[in-house]
């Protein structure tokens, strides 16, 4: 089983992607999608040098929902800053010390930071132990770091167990 389907989440994602692209769920498209979802991971497995396992799938779903809510919040936040007529913004470049290891969790954390209120991840430190964050309007940089740690990094640590 592990030989035939080496990356089950990836196969599931490919199947969903195929069905969405066809915009149709019939026996024929499902069968072709199933074949592709098994063959493509087998063929491209050698190119994956970042083995990652999803330990807590339910927590990942919860993380995704939190992320969706935060995207809406961040949109309103930025909209307010843009529409405020003469509000002085206080940007800051903040160092964020990483507790996570592994390239996939760090990538997910960096993307999350870019999508959530007021912050964009700008650069990964050369040693891979810290992220450089640009915050658009921040009074207390330490609080921002703590919030990201509490809200996202803790959950990612649990999901990927690293």
């Amino acid at each position, binding site marked *: 089983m592990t030989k035939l389907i080496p990356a089950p989440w990836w196969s599931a994602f490919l199947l969903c992607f195929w069905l969405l692209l066809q915009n149709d769920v019939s026996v024929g498209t499902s069968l072709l999608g199933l074949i592709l979802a098994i063959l493509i991971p087998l063929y491209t497995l050698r190119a994956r040098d970042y083995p990652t396992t999803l330990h807590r799938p339910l927590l990942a779903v919860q993380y995704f929902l939190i992320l969706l809510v935060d995207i809406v919040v961040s949109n309103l936040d930025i909209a307010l800053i843009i529409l405020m007529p003469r509000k002085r*913004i206080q940007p*800051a470049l903040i160092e964020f010390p990483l507790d996570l290891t592994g390239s996939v969790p760090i990538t997910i954390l960096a993307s999350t930071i870019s999508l959530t209120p007021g912050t964009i*991840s700008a650069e990964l430190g050369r040693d891979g132990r810290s992220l450089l964050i640009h915050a658009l309007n921040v009074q207390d940089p330490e609080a921002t770091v703590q919030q990201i740690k509490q809200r996202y990094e803790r959950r990612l640590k649990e999901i990927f167990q690293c």
Partner: protein
Amino acid sequence: MTDLPQWADLLISFFIVLGASFAFIGSLGLLRLPDFMARLHAPTKNTTLGVGGVVMGSMLYFSVTDAFSLHELLIAIFLFLTAPISAHLLAKAGLHLELELNENTKDLRKKPEQYTDKDS
């Protein structure tokens, strides 16, 4: 356009107006924020919700008038995955070119050489 039931009409209109407003605000931010790193915030965040709203409207419209349709979700998923990546690369380019930042930016880098991209 075909005739729609009342609730679908209102809901689709709501999503489309929401999406268009956010896309507009994002572009406005691109025009009027003071420095490059600040300008980067507006389009990356607001276009995800802007396109998201339009995609929701389109999905509802075609599901109501035609067969059940979800494939517009692909565009939303794709933008959702790629917006942070292009923002990250552009931020890297901005840092690398050492563009001037707004004068009340607090630079809290302890070791700035940690984040340079130059080969040394």
